[in-house]
């Protein structure tokens, strides 16, 4: 995984090593370097710092600044040489070590960079380079591979920078790669297993190919009839394949059989509720939704579905109760907010209805921006509650 190279480091940070107690010639070069930096003329700044270093090769600040400029120029091997020299001359220059670790890593020597990157990540206080160092550490551990260290570093980064797009992107990449690796290993160790057919089915579902997904689940079922959840998966795929009575009946049988071997499968109860709802048998649907909630009290979709039924049956107060529970369990579920808004509206609680509708719109807008990128990892094990087009 190739991650980004830092695009900007504050010029002030690179110049922070400058001192004022040197010869006038050195000071002149420093002033010119500072001016060049102010004008973003990195070539000139490098030239002036080089001149300083020529005059006094043991001038730690000069070498650190030269390294800093090389760093900004993406000349990482050259930056590493200067920063390493600076650090030897003055080990207390933590900023130089921060830049050194990143420069060594960017030069392709990740292992050599490890101790410096770890030091940067360990240091407390404001440090604009810690995020970058952490990301490079992840790259390093990922290449090793050391999954546990990847996880630890990623968790620390996500805690420190919860809303950093770059950290989120890196996390996305790591998890996607791990998912593919695990499934690839499954292909290797059990090429004809029920689980592999299940994975194939899930992949087909993400592509919207429900008939072939159903075929794969059928094969998985033949391989291992005791595989928990496989009949339910088959039933869901069948329901998505066609809405005709025959498909619904077949799906219903699958859910019932799943419950026969796995009576605690709340999802199958819920799916039966969905089937009866589609058949316009609201009372029967509610019974199954209730049973699903009895088995799994925190089942958000079942609560939403029950709320939907009760709202339709003029039982808005009860509907509000279960929908509030659903919102509490899954606050980002747009359908929960929508249904709650409907229930409030029925009760004439306009202000609360408006608030829920606003929340619904906000969430819908966010989810609309999620594009195909999620399809590869997104698969629903149940029929999700949706808002139908006629509503």
């Amino acid at each position, binding site marked *: 995984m190739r991650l980004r190279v830092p695009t900007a480091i504050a010029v002030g940070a690179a110049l922070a090593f400058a001192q004022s107690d040197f010869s006038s010639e050195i000071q002149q070069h420093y002033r010119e370097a500072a001016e060049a930096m102010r004008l973003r003329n990195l070539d000139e700044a490098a030239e002036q710092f080089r001149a300083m270093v020529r005059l006094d090769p043991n001038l730690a600040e000069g070498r650190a600044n030269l390294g800093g400029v090389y760093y900004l120029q993406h000349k990482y091997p050259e930056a590493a040489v200067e920063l390493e020299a600076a650090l030897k001359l003055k080990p207390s220059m933590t900023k130089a070590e921060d830049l050194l670790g990143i420069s060594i890593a960017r030069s*392709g020597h990740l292992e050599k960079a490890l101790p410096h990157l770890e030091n940067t990540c360990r240091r407390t206080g404001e440090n604009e380079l810690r995020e970058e160092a952490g990301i490079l550490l992840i790259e390093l551990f990922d290449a090793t591979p050391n999954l546990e260290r990847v996880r630890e570093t990623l*968790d620390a980064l996500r805690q420190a920078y919860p809303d950093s*797009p770059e950290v989120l992107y890196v996390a996305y990449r790591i998890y996607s790669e791990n998912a593919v690796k695990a499934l690839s290993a*499954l292909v290797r160790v059990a090429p004809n297993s029920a689980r592999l057919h299940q994975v194939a089915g899930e992949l087909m579902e993400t592509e919207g190919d429900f008939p072939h997904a159903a075929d794969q689940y059928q094969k998985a079922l033949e391989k291992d009839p005791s595989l928990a959840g496989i009949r339910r998966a088959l039933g869901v795929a069948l329901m998505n394949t066609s809405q005709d009575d025959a498909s619904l009946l077949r799906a219903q049988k699958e859910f019932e059989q799943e419950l026969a071997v796995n009576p605690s499968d709340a999802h199958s109860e819920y799916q039966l509720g969905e089937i009866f709802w589609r058949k316009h048998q609201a009372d029967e649907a509610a019974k199954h939704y209730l049973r699903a909630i009895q088995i799994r009290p925190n089942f958000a979709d079942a609560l939403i579905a029950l709320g939907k039924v009760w709202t339709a049956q003029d039982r808005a107060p009860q509907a509000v109760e279960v929908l509030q529970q659903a919102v509490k369990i899954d606050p980002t579920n747009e359908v929960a907010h929508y249904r709650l808004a409907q229930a409030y509206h029925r009760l004439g609680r306009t202000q609360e209805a408006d608030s829920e509708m606003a929340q619904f719109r906000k969430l819908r807008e966010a989810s609309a921006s999620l594009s195909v*990128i*999620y399809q590869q990892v997104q*698969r629903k094990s149940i029929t999700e509650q949706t808002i139908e087009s006629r509503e």
Partner: protein
Amino acid sequence: MFCIAVLAQGEKTVQQYYEEAQKALAEKRLEAAADAYETLTRLDPKTAENYAQLGLIRYMQGSFGAAAPAFRRALELKPGLLHVNVLLAICLSELGQYADAEPGLLKGFQHPPDPVTKRLIGLELIRSYSRRKQWDKAVQMAIKLSQLYPDDPEVLYHAGRLHGDIAYQTMQRLSQVAPDSVWVHQAAGEAHEVQGQYELAAIEYKKVVELDSARPGIHFRLGRVILRQEDATAQDLALAEFQKELQVDPTNAGAAYEIGEIQRKQGRLEKAREFFAMAAERQPEFEEARIGLARTLIDLHQPEKALPQIESAFQLNSGNEVSHFQLSRAYRALGKTAEQRKELQEFQRLRQQKRGQHKSLLDPSFNPGDVTRQSVDDDTP
């Protein structure tokens, strides 16, 4: 799996029920056995083992809702009853009562009755943490299980699903905090690329370029997906992107390598040599760059200079058929017939072996942003 001893009761009726239950169990008539134990718990409500056995039968029937209270009662009567707390925790987890289940599951995972149960508890914990959105703990457990059971299809399946789910959650968050950002477009491009939708990937990568043309790595990625499109101008367009990449990030060995490869394919061997050498210098452990440089040097009639490059490639990966093939070419150019023949045989053996291998859609070697692999297709004798 679990063996819970049930003490025989002195009273005749109890004894009869007990025998009836045992017989039903031996004959695998679980419902009849459960009925008998239900009666036993009424007749002898102070015996913990009766509840434990009833719980176990309900557990075996998959009736976790009925098993849990029986296990709970058994533990109230005899808190130290072996493994019952683990079974109760599994039941609670199956019932979706994850918070209540976790302490027992964790204890069970640390001190499992047997390896089979440890694995089961681990899988329950993954699910429990996932459902409670404790992704960190779920991943930690998935990693542990993957290390303990590296070839277990069930573990691999759940680990794959978990990571996929978290990737999805992460993208949701990313789209909330930075919609229409370079990160979202780049991730979209990568997703298209993985699925082989190179035109769509190029569109997304171009959006990234529009937003941040100096973003390191993006011209390289764009160049790669352009190369994969079957277009007459693809090589030239890709070449321009790789060159832009080197302007942004002179250390990008992949871009230098791709330029070398395009130059080589277009017959500009000196240029190819220059860029392959640059790539190998920037990233000394870059196997493909070493091979590319070696084959270019052979074409430039400098086979002796090619040998150390192939040696380096071998050190990185001795099983690469292309390295053996190029070495055979170098030996041929140097007039070393016996060595040439030996390398050619090794090349053919490896190629045969590769053909027999199962090629998967989920090829783990595929990675967006990877480089063009060296092949022998265009110069195999």
